[in-house]
């Protein structure tokens, strides 16, 4: 019979005396649990009970010993770890090296980018200012890249690509890829924040995408992702893990800008944000492509678009295929295949419209490239009439 592994059983099944393992193991075990379950803030606010006591009710002497260690440790006297602790953290140094951060960015600042305002309300020790700076830089670099690379993109597509490049979900995914985990006890190497209560409504998640008619308003009233701006966030109520980790990424961007300057910040942006592949052509959605194309050709003084059959097979069969091209005069604007003439025409019109909107100039320069030393004189970028309005 297979031997039972008793030490894997939970404490509800086993009495404390029946546990296997030596005293040292118990000590280590309770220490680890204590680090990852309760932060001093939470234990002060919510309950007086000691988390490691309910987990492992060992003898009194050991419990007193652990409690005394906990109050002696300087790390947990303050809501965020002391500045000197950053130098001794191996994880911070590893993160610094892994991200290939400039050496001018000190570990102390990197430690500060990890402290959310919900964990430490003191603005001298949390990352709030760095987040603001990093967010502005990120959205500026992203928007100038999008507008100069694809000057004809419709507004809705710009908003969604901004969200894809620098939105909170992407940034949180990046923090995860960088190997940054969330902590509830200050340790100098993990994102520190107060978690939002379970079941509470996450601010900024319930908003609905507004109908297309109000797209023009979004430039003036809404944020860079085309969403209605949420009011001031109450940090005392806690933040979600997604928001905390996305704020960390923004704070890193701001910290690099402050310590290493503009070129380093831009390089960091190109290496970590622009290098992420985004298929912009999949963000489009047309409801009446043929009509839109008609209006576009009328606006640009092209000949009226005409759908023609380039090739077909199995017209009388169950699954025919028609390859339809849309021509304006002698020029082919788009091509699409479908199982009916109508579908082929619609797909061809979609392809033609995407061909128009996804135009990209040959040599793309962004305005911030003028900040480089010895930059060539600025040539104005291509500015388009805008999207087709029917």
């Amino acid at each position, binding site marked *: 019979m297979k031997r039972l592994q008793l030490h894997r059983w939970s404490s509800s099944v086993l009495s404390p005396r029946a546990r296997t393992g030596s005293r040292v193991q118990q000590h280590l075990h309770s220490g680890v649990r204590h680090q990852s379950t309760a932060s001093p803030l939470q234990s002060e606010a919510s309950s007086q009970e000691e988390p490691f006591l309910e987990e492992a009710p060992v003898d009194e002497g050991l419990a007193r010993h652990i409690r005394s260690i906990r109050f002696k440790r300087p790390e947990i006297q303050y809501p965020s770890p002391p500045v000197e602790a950053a130098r001794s953290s191996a994880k911070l140094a590893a993160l610094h090296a892994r991200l290939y951060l400039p050496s001018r960015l000190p570990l102390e600042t990197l430690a500060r980018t990890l402290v959310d305002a919900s964990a430490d309300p003191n603005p001298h020790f949390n990352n709030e200012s760095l987040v603001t700076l990093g967010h502005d830089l990120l959205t500026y670099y992203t928007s100038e890249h999008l507008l100069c690379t694809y000057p004809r993109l419709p507004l809705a597509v710009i908003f969604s690509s901004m969200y894809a490049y620098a939105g909170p979900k992407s940034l949180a995914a990046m923090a995860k890829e960088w190997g940054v985990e969330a902590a509830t006890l200050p340790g100098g190497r993990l994102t520190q924040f107060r978690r939002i209560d379970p079941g509470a409504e996450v601010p900024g998640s319930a908003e609905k995408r507004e109908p297309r008619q109000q797209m023009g308003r979004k430039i003036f009233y809404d944020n860079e992702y085309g969403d209605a701006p949420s009011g001031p966030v109450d940090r005392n109520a806690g933040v979600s893990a997604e928001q905390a980790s996305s704020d960390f990424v923004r704070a890193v961007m701001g910290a690099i800008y402050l310590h290493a300057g503009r070129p380093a910040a831009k390089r960091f942006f190109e290496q970590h944000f622009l290098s992420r592949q985004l298929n912009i052509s999949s963000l489009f959605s047309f409801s009446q492509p043929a009509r839109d194309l008609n209006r576009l050709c009328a606006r640009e003084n092209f000949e009226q678009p*005409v759908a*023609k059959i*380039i090739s077909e097979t199995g017209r009388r069969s169950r699954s025919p295929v028609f390859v339809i091209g849309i021509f304006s005069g002698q*020029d082919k604007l788009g*091509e699409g295949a479908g199982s009916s003439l109508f579908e082929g025409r619609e797909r061809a019109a979609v392809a033609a419209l995407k061909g128009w909107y*996804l*135009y990209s100039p*040959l040599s793309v320069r962004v305005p911030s490239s003028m900040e480089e030393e010895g930059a060539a004189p600025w040539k104005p970028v291509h500015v388009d009439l805008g999207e087709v309005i029917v």
Partner: protein
Amino acid sequence: MATSMVPKRPFLSLPFLLPSWTDSLALGSRRNQSSYRRTKQRLRVKPDASFGPSRQGHDQIIFNPPSSAPSVYHTPSKFLPPGDARKTLRAENVARPDADNLPGVYKSTEKKYHLSTAQIEEIRQLRLSDPMTWSRHKLAKRFECSQMFIAMVCEASPEKKEIQKQVTQAIQSRWGPKRRMAREDRQLRRETWGRDA
């Protein structure tokens, strides 16, 4: 009697009635195409140039156009702005399909622009006064224009819209689950066209 019976069947299918020298002819015409050797011979096509050995001494360009649709990131020449270098680069030696000789998807109709303001007023008047008789279809027939034009010029009255809605609902209420699902699927499929999915 016997001679009158014979012509009912094809003469060639009864070779024993024919003289002996026609035997080979009759057999030859009866032979069908499904023999293995013949099929094999038919399939023995010359391989494409790109698979063969390269011609010695000459440079050659092998161009196998992909069977997929062109990428949407490849902007059509017509859509390039005037200053773009690609516009002049691409102008020559581009194999275009001859647009004039391709069959159209729909019958191309020349626009006539023949309706006057008074006639358009009349269309509106008719549609308002008796919407049940003067539907879009009938108005288009009478004024020799498209139904689209009628819809651009005037709109049905709210009562007519309400009636039409009820009629549609009555029809849809008779649909069973299969038809309803098929219609919904069709709608979803149409939406994927616009997303190019």
